[in-house]
């Protein structure tokens, strides 16, 4: 029975349990709802949960465990590699075993599809006496391509894999249904008028709510664990100091790569700096105008328009950088000034990221400026200050911590931005001061190293995790700093 069908059956059983338990509770109270402990629906929900939860638990556990168990018992049939001493040999032995298992899986799937489509007859359970060449031909005819020739061991393993899978599938169905039916029986037995069904159901629902809110924690743990373990693997293959202080970035998939972080960090920070030079004045002045000068009607039109910028996907900005901004800067600024003739440059990416960050800076600053109490402004006006003097000398100093926080957050967004830099900044890692040269960032290199075929044993792939970890730490640090600044220096006006 397929997983989806099994799920459907469990849900139908749960619905049945709802109806049965609800009816039984009402019957036990002689049809008089007032004599029940809980509302009749609570009994129904209790029944449904009793059916669904154990059955789903069994199903999920089975889905996770079955591949592991089968891989282990099939692996025992495959030719055993000799015991290995060094870590390197162990690694390669493990890879070979994984490859062999993959072959087995592909062969098993091939036989399955060929047999079910009637292209070939069933093979003997242990694969004995089968004609390898004929088998391969039959498989090829039904559209199954295999890497190499089929060996008797692989065939035997594939057959074992198939039989175990079939047994596992049946057992999974049986156990899931047993769990569901046992839950149903227990729920029906428990259901009578004094049973505290509502309390039980509410306790379960509360557990589910807690589980849902823990997903955030699991995500963080997942991020840190996955990046940390691969980063440590990387540092086992490549010295830490060379990574953090190296001046050259030249990965090479044939070996002898150099992974110096400095050029990437330089590119990232340079682009971030330019983007802040664009975003902060534009965003801040927009916010000041909207908060202090604009009439409510103007504000209601302009503010959503500026926020449209925030709703546009970054890949659109990337294309804008690639097609419009880059060539414009090259033809009108860089070439006349003799600063190079590269379409993708630090300037292109920086300006476009700056534009992307305008609404971010402006809406955060707008909120902060609005939070400065009117009495401060009135006091300043009373002393004879003009509006702009009030803003410069009273409102902005009062709002400063919040604005600094907003700027730090915008900086962290600029550092983590990926699409605009991959389309607008180029891919050459270099240390240069000319903003019209193509440079590259950490995010671009993460994409570069992880796109396409990835081999988790080579430093060329693993370096992306070290870069990701660095990026994660930097952006997290900036955000924590922003929150700290805001909290520490927040003026209390109440």
């Amino acid at each position, binding site marked *: 029975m397929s997983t989806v069908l099994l799920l459907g059956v469990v849900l139908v059983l749960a619905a049945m349990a709802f109806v049965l338990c609800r009816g039984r509770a009402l019957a036990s109270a002689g049809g008089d709802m007032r004599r029940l402990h809980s509302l009749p629906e609570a009994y129904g929900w209790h029944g449904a949960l009793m059916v669904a939860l154990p059955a789903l638990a069994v199903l999920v556990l089975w889905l996770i465990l079955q591949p592991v168990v089968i891989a282990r018992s099939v692996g025992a049939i495959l030719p055993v590699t000799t015991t290995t001493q060094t870590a390197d040999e162990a690694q390669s032995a493990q890879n070979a075993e994984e490859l062999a298992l993959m072959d087995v899986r592909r062969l098993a799937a091939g036989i399955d599809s060929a047999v079910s489509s009637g292209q070939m007859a069933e093979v003997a359970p242990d694969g004995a006496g089968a004609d390898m060449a004929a088998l391969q031909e039959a498989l090829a005819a039904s559209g199954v391509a295999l890497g190499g020739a089929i060996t008797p061991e692989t065939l035997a393993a594939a057959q074992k894999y198939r039989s175990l899978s079939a047994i596992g599938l049946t057992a999974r169905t049986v156990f899931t249904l047993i769990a569901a039916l046992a839950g149903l029986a227990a729920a029906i037995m428990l259901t009578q008028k004094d049973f505290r069904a509502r309390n039980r159901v509410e306790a379960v629902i*509360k557990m589910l709510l807690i589980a849902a809110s823990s997903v955030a924690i699991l995500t963080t743990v997942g991020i840190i664990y996955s990046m940390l373990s691969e980063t440590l693997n990387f540092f086992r293959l490549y010295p830490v100091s060379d990574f953090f202080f190296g001046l050259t970035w030249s990965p090479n998939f044939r070996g002898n790569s150099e992974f110096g972080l400095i050029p990437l960090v330089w590119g990232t920070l340079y682009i971030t700096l330019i983007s802040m030079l664009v975003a902060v004045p534009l965003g*801040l*002045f927009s916010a000041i105008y909207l908060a202090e000068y604009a009439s409510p009607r103007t504000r209601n039109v302009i503010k959503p328009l500026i926020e449209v910028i925030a709703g546009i996907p970054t890949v659109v900005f990337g294309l804008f950088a690639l097609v419009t901004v880059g060539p414009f800067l090259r033809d009108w600024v860089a070439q006349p000034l003799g600063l190079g003739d590269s379409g993708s440059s630090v300037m292109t990416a920086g300006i476009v990221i700056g534009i992307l960050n*305008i609404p971010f800076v402006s809406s955060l600053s707008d909120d902060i400026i609005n939070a400065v109490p009117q009495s401060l402004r009135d006091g300043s006006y009373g002393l004879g200050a*003009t509006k702009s003097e009030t803003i410069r000398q009273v409102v902005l100093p009062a709002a400063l911590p919040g604005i600094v926080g907003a700027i730090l957050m915008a900086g*962290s967004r600029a550092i983590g931005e990926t699409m605009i830099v991959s389309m607008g900044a180029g891919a050459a890692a270099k240390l240069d001061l000319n903003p019209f040269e193509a440079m590259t960032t950490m*995010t671009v290199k993460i*994409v570069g190293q992880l796109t396409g075929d990835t081999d988790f044993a080579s430093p060329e792939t693993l370096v992306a995790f070290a870069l*990701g970890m660095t990026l994660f730490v930097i952006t997290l640090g900036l955000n924590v700093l922003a929150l700290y600044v805001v909290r520490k220096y927040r003026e209390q006006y109440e």
Partner: protein
Amino acid sequence: MTDTATPTPTESLLRPSRLMSRRNAAERRFRLYGITAIAISLLVLAIMLFTILRDGVSAFRQTSVTFPVVLTAEALDPSGSLDAAAMAKVTTIGYGKVIDSSFLAFLQAEGLAVDGLSDKDARAILSKEAAGQLRAQVLAEPALVGQTITMTIWTNARIDGYFKGRVTMESAERDGNVSPEQLQLADLLAENGALSRPFNWQFLTGPDASDQRPEAAGLGISIIGSIFMMIIVALLCVPIGVAASIYLEEFAPKNRWTDLIEVNISNLAAVPSIVYGILGLAVFINFAGFPQSSSLVGALVLTLMTLPTIIIATRSAIRAVPPSIRDAALGIGASKMQTVFHHVLPLAMPGILTGAILGLATALGETAPLLLIGMVAFVDNYPSLSAAGALDPATALPVQVYGWAQRSDPAFIERSSGAIIVLLIFLVIMNAAAILLRRRFERRW
């Protein structure tokens, strides 16, 4: 007793002093800065949307030639049996020859000829994709063999670009892929009326095409992939997000664990999206063994990414429901759980849905994490349209934009901009829905 000497006014009150006029000028300047900042921001937005529209609108129309194609039985059905299996032996090359000879015959019949243009170059103005399409059409309907049908066939991307202003006679001189003579032939065909520019449905429904055939590249698979992902993200993200928000707002005791969750959520909202891509690659593909480039993995990554946004929006919607509602429900004997699910949640629903739609809109436009889980790969088989299709390789709209922008042929920039227009239409619809929802159900307490 002091003598108060009345100061003699040196300046008129009606005419501002020099200091005052300087201060007023500073005031005007300051105001101007603000207006300039807003004007620049909106101008750049307008320029960006304008260039995208200018480059992209033409992707929805495709230059095509309409002419009769003679489906000769000898070429297409050598056995003469009309048997599907026997006919399938004829490859696209065979069909290409049928189209070519029909096209040349058509040119001759209409008297369209350009000096110095060989037959080979003349038929090269047609898209190479046509042969495959004709083959599929004939195999689906074998009775067509032996008949003459009128077909509308795409021209290649250069001829298409000529009519869209991308290719000129001068650029054709320097271009190895097209000659000025071919453009003259295209002009003749246009005068003859055989050339038309119909709406290109294939751009919305067709699969991606190789680097050499920009005219055939379509968005079909990426639209399907994006829709798949949005459905899964909505199914996972909304229930989990709402459940988490309910717990944190209504039930959570103030303790370390709750604090930890709170800090986590606000930090996760600020993690760069590419980090989620790394997480997806390491956990869902490398560890759990889900298939690469599948929309399921893409959706899981986007779910984790969108979750903090949705939780933050939902919590503020729940917080906006006044405590008096809860007090009233508790007062007439509802349990805490009943209060939340029967009263607070329905009242907060419009706000929750608005936040959820906006979160989904962000997820729809996200590109970077999808690159890492392999969705940028070239896919030309449609994923199956059942639940299992979520495991088939697919692409997504924003990734397709990126993929096309990376290709060298300038015709792909048009395609890329066209894909952005489709993406923006989806986003406008989602945002409009969110605004309408808020307008319609917003409640002031």
